[in-house]
């Protein structure tokens, strides 16, 4: 399928795992570990899907998401939010901020694959 995924995450093991899963499925996985310039990275690459972790050094995932949604080029890009907190109000907060999908860690590999696939296909 040859789609581009931008993974904004700081934990190296998680990056490794997701990269393995998605690239086996044919995705082009780019990663960015820093919250400060995550938005710029996204702007530069203009991926088809963004996977965004909430807990990032520098900037909170929610702030980055707001920025992404504010930008016309990225406004329609599907964003999958990853977080360690799975409460309903966190889900609502994510939806309000503009996340297309929301997932809690730890996740099932099959699930994340399925979700990413679905996000691209409108």
């Amino acid at each position, binding site marked *: 399928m040859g789609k581009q995924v931008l993974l904004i995450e700081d934990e190296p093991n998680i990056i490794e795992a997701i990269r393995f899963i998605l690239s086996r499925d044919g995705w082009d996985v780019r990663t960015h570990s820093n919250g400060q310039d995550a938005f710029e990275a996204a702007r530069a690459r203009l991926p088809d899907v963004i996977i965004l972790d909430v807990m990032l050094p520098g900037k909170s995932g929610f702030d980055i998401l707001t920025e992404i949604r504010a930008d016309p080029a990225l406004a329609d890009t599907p964003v999958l939010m990853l977080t*360690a907190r799975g409460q309903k109000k966190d889900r609502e907060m994510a939806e309000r901020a503009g996340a297309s999908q929301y997932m809690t860690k730890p996740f099932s590999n099959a699930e994340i694959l399925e979700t990413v696939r679905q996000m691209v296909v409108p």
Partner: protein
Amino acid sequence: MATLNILVLVCLSYVVLLFVVAFAADRAALRGRGKWLRSPIIYTLSLSIYCTAWTFYGAVGFAARSGLEFVTIYLGPTLVMIGWWWALRKMVRVGRSQRITSIADLISSRFGKSNTLAVFVTLLAVIGTTPYIALQLQSVTLSFAAFAETGPDVGEAINREVTAFWLALGLALFTILFGTRNLDANERHHGVVMAIALEAVVKLFALLAVGVFVVWGLSGGVSETLARIDASNIARWDVSASRWVGLTALSAAAFLCLPRMFQVMVVENEDEDHLRTAAWAFPAYLMLMSLFVVPIAVVGLDLLEGTNPDLFVLSLPLSQGQDGLAILSFLGGFSSATSMVIVAAIALSTMVSNHIVMPIWLNMTGGNAVMSGDVRQVALLARRLSIAGVVLLGYLYFRISGGGTALAKIGLVSFAGVAQFLPALLGGLFWRGATRAGAMAGLVIGSLVWLYSLFLPSFGTGTILSDAIMHDGLWGLSWLRPQALFGSEGMDPLVHAVMWSMLLNTAGFITVSLLSFPKPIERLQGAQFVNVYDHSPTTGGWTGGLAQTEDLLIMAQRIMGSTQAQAFFASAAGRQGIGGYLPEPSPDFLQSLERELSGSVGAAAAHAMVGQIVGGASVSVEDLMAVADETAQIMEYSSKLEAKSTELTRTARQLREANEKLTQLSRQKDAFLSQVSHELRTPMTSIRAFSEILRDADGLQAEEAGKYASVIHDEAIRLTRLLDDLLDLSVLENGQVSLNVQTGTLGDLLDRAEAAAGGNSGELEVRRQRGDEGIMLSTDLDRLAQVFINLIANARKYCDAKTPVLTIESRLSGEMLLVDFIDNGTGIPTDKQTVIFEKFSRIGDTKAGGAGLGLAICREIMGRLGGRVTYLPGQSGAAFRVSLPVEQRVAAQ
């Protein structure tokens, strides 16, 4: 018979005139008009009830029998009046300022408001006065009979009784009507006083008229009269000294103590200043009354020998055919009799109602004497019934005694009875040391002696006191003979009785007063009475209700506020039919005002304040005590309230602080939980992801698989370590850790830690400066090792120098052991130097894989061991100092 009918007619019209006068006077007094009501002349004339029918008729009889001795009866009061500065002035002042209503009230009030005393005095007064009332009834019936011109035979006897009955009934009715109109708080009866004054004029005029008739009409002039006197039985001036002095003293005492005299002299007194006029005017009246007594007696003895000398005043004009004069004389006698009965009935009924009936009734119904409408009705009823009762008693006495000469002596017996009040009265007014017990003792002794030696014998030997007792004494003891007590033989019975009763009375009074100790209220009342001139200004008479109401308004404005007070007063005035703001100080108004005020200042204070203004009286002791009680209660209550309120404020503050702490803790807990959750989930994510990869992926190369498996392994270890650290930290924070104290050298410990932390393997080089490593430590060495291990591991993880070197320096400074861990990296920025000891704080990248709890644990451990771990700034790299207090003991190297 015709004259009798005319007489009845004249009598009735006279009575109607009295009614009219009384009514008009009452009305005028209510309206506040009638300055003439308050003239000293009216007051003087009212004192004339001292001269009763016994004066009008009996004086002449007395003179006919015993010559000038009768003058003593009038000289006594004369001397008392002239000496008004001594006793009367004080009596009147006290009576007005203490609002005394009767002689019983005065005596009981002086001695601590003792009701026992009041009851005793009342009973004695009733016993003493009843025969006197009977005497008046007898006089009038006798005078009626004289007009009827038939002798006292059977037919006449019935008539006499009926006459007396109708007379008694009429008197009772008049007294009830004008004596109990309403309950004036000051007990003033203006109508009655006016009627009495009129009667005084009538009787003086009548007696003078008869006297003039006798001297110039019958006798032929002054010199002839004098000649006649010289020629009569009573020509000799021959009086027994003891009787002379005794009777004068007795009449003086009676003048002060008679209930009816007290009533007109003190209770009905409008203005203390009137005493000054009465001081000379009343003796003048007495003088005029006595002027023609001897001439009438002598002429009567000459012309009407053999008839009752008591009736000469009437029979002389009648015998000479002077019917008009006779009727006038009759009216004089009638006036004197009726005025006595009316005033005596009022005085006695006041005492009976106030001190006997009302206390009993109040006791039965419970509660205290607030002048509610209900109580007033009962008081009025009691008053009226008492009046009827007293008059009835007099009538019964008259019936039982059957009239006759026995009654004539009763006048003096009655005087002797009321004279028993004198020691208590004068003692109470002038002697601070007089006590209730003394007064009681004196009264009891005196009245017993009086009863035994005068009153009972007066019924005649053999009636009550048997012959045996009269002759041989009580129980056969000769010194207890009623008329020769203690061996005093041969004295005139009256003088004898008076002497002994007064002597023993006074002796008992003084002795018991000296021996007994008065109650506080007695002493206070004593001070108030004896020192009355210090306390009360000369109350300027009836200053008029409006002046008082104005004072009341001023006071009410201060308490209730001007608008409210004025509205209240205006509505009260409106209800009374007066315009403006000043209503009459009627009992109803005063009562409602008190109620109104008690809402603001309390009942006792309101009562005291109103009473002070209206009564002009100093506040009574009881009122003061009630006010003090109430004030004390209020103060206690308000201090309790204050304490409660302070407590509440404190509790509220504590609650607020606790709430803040809890909120803070809750927030901290939330933060901690979310942080922990994140920390736990992160390794879990890797473990799950890679294990799924290993499970699902085929075509995985062995190298890859091995790599992923070790990731899982590492993450699992990380997770375990995190959980261990969390638990450790929790245990440390809760203080549940128990220290395992061991001893060992610092050097050994550092070796151990170094080895456990990986030693010199890896990139980190550990250098030791073994300065004071020989120090013996006595603490939980495992925990201390844990701290050292942590610090070394941190240096290994975070030191970012090309060749990382960790230097461990140990030094002893005073009581403290200092172990410094210094690396050669970039160190920690200043703003993070305290934050790093917090839980989950990590700086820089998170690649190092720690949970951020290490330094927090170190801090807790050092805290438990009594030392500290701090960041040491200004070194070549990151530097941590562990400080621990130790004892100065250096191990032998």
